[in-house]
C-alpha cells in the first residue's frame, strides 16, 4: 500500500537529456482551443506525472503525442529528431505508445494474438509463425511478471490482467516513451502494486513514462516530476520531492474559482428525495442523504466511486440490495426507468452520445422523446404541439441550431446537452439528476448550463448534480456529498467547505481522518 498521508514524494529528479520533447503544441478544434502553446518533456527512466482537471487538455496532449490528433502548431522531438506522427501506428513504431483508459482488446483471441494484433510474426507464404509468436509473447509476459499464459483467452482474464495485456502490446516495439492514461481507474487496491512494479521495471530499462492520474497518492508515490495543465495552458513543472499536494492543487485550479455563491438558490422546501442506507452489492453501500425542493446537492468523487451507480439505482436501472428510496416522502422502488420517469425523476446521463441522445434523430424528436404522451392523443402525435414544445425550450435555453430538422449528432456538445436537459424539463420532473452535466463542453456553454441549473433549482426543482470537477461542484451546490469507493465519506456545506477537505474526502484520506475523530 502507498503511504496515505505522503504529502511530498521521495523521488529525486533524474538528470538526463529528455528522450521526448514537446514544444509549443497548439491544437484547435472547431470553436475551442484545446491546447495553447504547451511545452512538455520526458527524460529516460523517469515517471513524469501529468495533472489537470477534466477538460484541461491532458488527453488531447497525449493524443497529439501518440499520433491520434495532429497539432496545429508546435514540434515533437523524439531522441533529438523532429517527428510528425500521422497515425498511432506511426508513433508506435517510433517508440511512443499510449495505454488507453478503455481497453481495446479482442476478447475471443488469445493473449499472444492480442499482444501482436496487427503485427503477427510471419513465415514465408504469409503464414503466422506460431513458434516465434509464442516465444516473443512469453518473453514479454516474463518482463511483466504475469501469472497468465500466452494461450489464455483474453475474455477470461480479470480487468487488471487485461491491462497487463494492453501494456504487453506496448512492449512489442521497443518503446521509448509509454503513456499511462488513468491506469488505476479500474483496478482494485491489491492489483495496483503489480502495475507499479511494471512501471518501475520499465523505468529501469530507460523508458520514459508519462503518467496521467487524478489520484494524488499515486502521483506522489510514483513520479519524479509533475507537470500541470489548466484550461489547455501549461502552468508549470515541479520536482516531486520539492512540492506538496497543496501546491499542485493550486497549480491545477489556479484561477480564483469565481464562486458565485450569491446566485445559488437559497430557499428550500421539504425533502424531495431521501436515501436511507441504500446499497447495491459490490457497487456501493450505506448511502444516505437527502435533496430538498429548490436545493442543489452536489455529489463529488472520483470516477468509479459509485456516484453514477447511485443515480442509476434511484432511476430504477439497478435494484438495491438494501436500503430505501423516498420520493416526496413516499417510499418508492422502480423496476423500470419508465416507472421512474412517470414518478417524476429525470436523469441526464453521464454519456450524452451513448445514453442521452438518439444521434440519428433530429432536435425536435429528441426533445420530446421522454414525454410523447403529452404531445399526442390516442397514440397520434400532434405536430403543432410538438413544435411548440421544441420552440419553447429552444428559446428558453438558447440552443443554437439552424433548424429543428438538424440531426443532433451534428450539434456541439453544449447544445446537445441543452437538448437532453430540455427533454427532461418537458416531462416536468420533481427531481432532476445531472450526471457530469458539463463534461466535454466548452467554457461558454458550461457557464450557461450552470446558470440554467441554478435557475431551475430556484424555480422549485430538487437537483442532484454528480461531477468530478471541483469548481463545478463548489460553484453550484448548496450541499456536497463526497463519495469514495462506494461510500459517502462526508457531507459539506457548499459555501464554507475548503478544497483541501473535499480532496481528502474523495481520495479516501478523509475517511481515515473521519474515522479517527469519531473513534
Amino acid at each position, binding site marked *: 500500500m502507498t503511504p496515505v498521508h505522503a504529502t511530498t514524494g521521495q523521488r529525486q529528479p533524474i538528470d538526463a537529456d529528455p528522450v521526448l520533447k514537446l514544444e509549443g503544441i497548439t491544437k484547435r478544434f472547431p470553436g475551442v482551443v484545446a491546447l495553447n502553446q504547451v511545452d512538455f518533456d520526458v527524460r529516460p527512466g523517469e515517471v513524469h506525472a501529468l495533472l489537470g482537471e477534466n477538460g484541461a487538455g491532458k488527453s488531447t496532449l497525449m493524443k497529439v503525442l501518440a499520433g491520434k490528433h495532429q497539432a496545429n502548431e508546435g514540434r515533437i522531438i523524439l531522441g533529438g529528431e523532429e517527428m510528425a506522427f500521422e497515425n498511432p501506428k506511426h508513433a508506435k513504431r517510433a517508440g511512443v505508445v499510449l495505454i488507453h483508459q478503455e481497453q481495446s482488446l479482442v476478447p475471443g483471441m488469445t493473449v499472444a494474438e492480442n499482444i501482436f494484433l496487427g503485427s503477427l510474426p510471419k513465415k514465408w507464404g504469409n503464414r503466422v509463425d506460431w513458434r516465434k509468436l509464442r516465444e516473443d509473447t512469453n518473453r514479454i509476459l516474463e518482463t511483466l511478471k504475469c501469472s497468465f499464459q500466452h494461450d489464455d483467452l483474453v475474455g477470461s482474464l480479470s480487468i487488471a490482467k487485461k491491462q497487463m495485456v494492453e501494456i504487453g502490446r506496448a512492449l512489442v516495439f521497443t518503446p521509448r516513451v509509454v503513456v499511462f492514461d488513468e491506469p488505476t481507474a479500474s483496478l482494485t487496491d491489491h492489483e495496483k502494486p503489480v502495475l507499479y512494479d511494471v512501471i518501475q521495471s520499465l523505468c529501469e530499462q530507460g523508458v520514459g513514462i508519462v503518467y496521467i492520474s487524478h489520484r494524488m497518492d499515486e502521483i506522489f508515490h510514483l513520479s519524479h516530476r509533475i507537470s500541470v495543465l489548466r484550461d489547455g495552458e501549461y502552468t508549470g513543472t515541479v520536482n516531486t520531492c520539492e512540492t506538496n499536494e497543496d501546491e499542485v492543487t493550486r497549480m491545477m485550479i489556479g484561477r480564483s474559482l469565481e464562486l458565485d455563491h450569491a446566485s445559488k438558490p437559497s430557499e428550500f422546501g421539504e425533502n424531495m428525495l431521501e436515501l436511507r442506507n441504500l446499497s447495491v452489492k459490490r457497487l456501493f453501500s450505506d448511502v444516505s442523504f437527502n435533496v430538498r425542493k429548490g436545493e442543489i446537492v452536489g455529489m463529488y468523487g472520483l470516477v468509479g466511486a459509485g456516484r453514477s451507480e447511485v443515480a442509476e439505482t434511484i432511476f430504477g436501472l439497478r435494484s438495491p440490495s438494501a436500503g430505501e428510496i423516498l420520493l416526496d416522502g413516499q417510499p418508492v422502488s422502480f423496476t*423500470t426507468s419508465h416507472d421512474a420517469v*412517470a414518478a417524476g425523476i429525470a436523469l441526464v446521463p453521464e454519456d450524452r452520445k451513448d445514453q442521452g*441522445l*438518439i*444521434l440519428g434523430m433530429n432536435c425536435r*424528436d429528441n426533445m420530446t422523446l421522454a414525454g*410523447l*404522451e403529452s404531445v399526442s392523443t390516442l397514440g397520434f*402525435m400532434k405536430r403543432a404541439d410538438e413544435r411548440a414544445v421544441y420552440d419553447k425550450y429552444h428559446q428558453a435555453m438558447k440552443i443554437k441550431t439552424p433548424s429543428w430538422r438538424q440531426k443532433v449528432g*451534428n450539434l456541439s456538445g453544449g447544445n446537445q446537452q441543452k437538448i437532453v436537459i430540455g427533454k427532461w424539463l418537458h416531462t416536468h420532473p420533481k427531481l432532476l439528476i445531472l450526471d457530469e452535466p458539463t463534461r466535454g463542453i466548452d467554457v461558454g456553454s458550461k457557464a450557461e448550463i450552470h446558470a440554467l441549473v441554478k435557475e431551475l433549482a430556484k424555480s422549485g426543482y430538487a437537483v442532484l448534480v454528480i461531477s468530478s470537477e471541483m469548481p463545478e461542484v463548489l460553484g453550484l451546490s448548496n450541499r456536497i456529498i463526497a463519495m469514495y469507493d462506494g461510500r459517502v465519506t462526508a457531507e459539506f456545506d457548499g459555501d464554507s467547505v475548503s478544497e483541501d477537505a473535499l480532496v481528502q474526502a474523495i481520495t479516501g484520506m478523509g475517511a481515515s481522518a473521519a474515522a479517527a475523530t469519531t473513534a
Partner: protein
Amino acid sequence: MISIKGFFRGRTIIQPIWVFVIAIFIFFSFMSEYFLSLSNITNILVQTSTIGLIALGMTYVMINGNIDLSVGAILGLAASLAVGLQDYGLTIAIIAALASGMLLGAINGLVVWKTGVNAFIVTLGAMLGIRGLIFLYTGEQSFYSMNFAFADFGASTIGPIPVLAIIFLLCTLVMHLVLTRTGHGRNTFAVGGNPEASIDAGIRLGRHMMINFIIVGFFAALAGVLLASQMGAATPNLGRDYELWTITAVVLGGTKLTGGYGSIVGTLGGVLAIGILRNGMNLMQVPAFYVLVVLGLILITVLIIDKKLNVPSTKEVRI
C-alpha cells in the same frame, strides 16, 4: 454529382430507390409494348402484394433493430390454416390464420425481449420449427379450397383495380402514418437508433419490440391468407424464401439492418423495384434464372450507392 448528393441529402423526400423505380419503369415502357398498360400495372401490384405486405411489418421490426426470418413459415402456416379450417366456417378459418401469425409473432418478440437472444437466431429457430408444424398439420398434403367465395375473393376487383392491390396500398398508407405520426412509430426509431438512450428516456423497449413482432406476424399471416385465396389452395412449402425477398425489398428501400433508419415509402419503392424488374424481364422473355442474377446484382449495387451517398459529412455543423 454534388447537386445529386445535395438533392438526396437535404430533404429526404426523394429516396434513391424511387429514382431507380422510375428509371426502370421508363426503361421497360420503351422495351416492351405490353408493359405500360393498366392491366399490367395492377398485375404488378397484385404480384408484389404478398411480399409487400410482409415487408411493411418487416420495416418496423428492422427499424426497431431486429429482424424476423420466420415470416415465410408463418405465411405458409396461415395459408394452410385458412384453407384447412374452412369446414368450421370461412370466418373462423381466416381469424384463426391471422391469430396464429400474431401469436407466433408475439412469441418471437417475447423470447427476444425476455432472453436478449439475438432476433436473427430466435426467428431462425422459429422459421425451422414453424415449417415443421406445417408439415405436422398438413401431413405433407396440399389443401384445396372448396369455398368458392374464398377463391373468388383473390381474383375480385373494384372497378378496374384488383382488391389485393387495394388492400396492399391501404395497408401501406396506414403503416406509413403509424410510423411517422404516432408515439409507437417514433419510439420504434428511438429504440433501434440507441437502445440505451431509449431506456434512459423511460421508453418501454420490450413492449415496442413485441408489438412490432406481432405486426409483422399479422402481415405475414394476412399475406398467407390472401395468397391462398389467389390460388384457391395452400401447399406446405408455400412461402419458402419469402423472408429473403422481404428483407431484400426492405433493405433496397433504405432501411438499415442495424436499426434506427428506414421508411415505409422506401420499402414501397423496394417492393415495386423487385416487382417491376421481375415483371418487365418476364415480358421481355428473359429466362427466370437471369432475373435472379440481375436482382442480386441490383441489390448490391443499390446498397453501394446508398453507402456512398450517406458518408457522414466531414464538415459537421458545429455552432
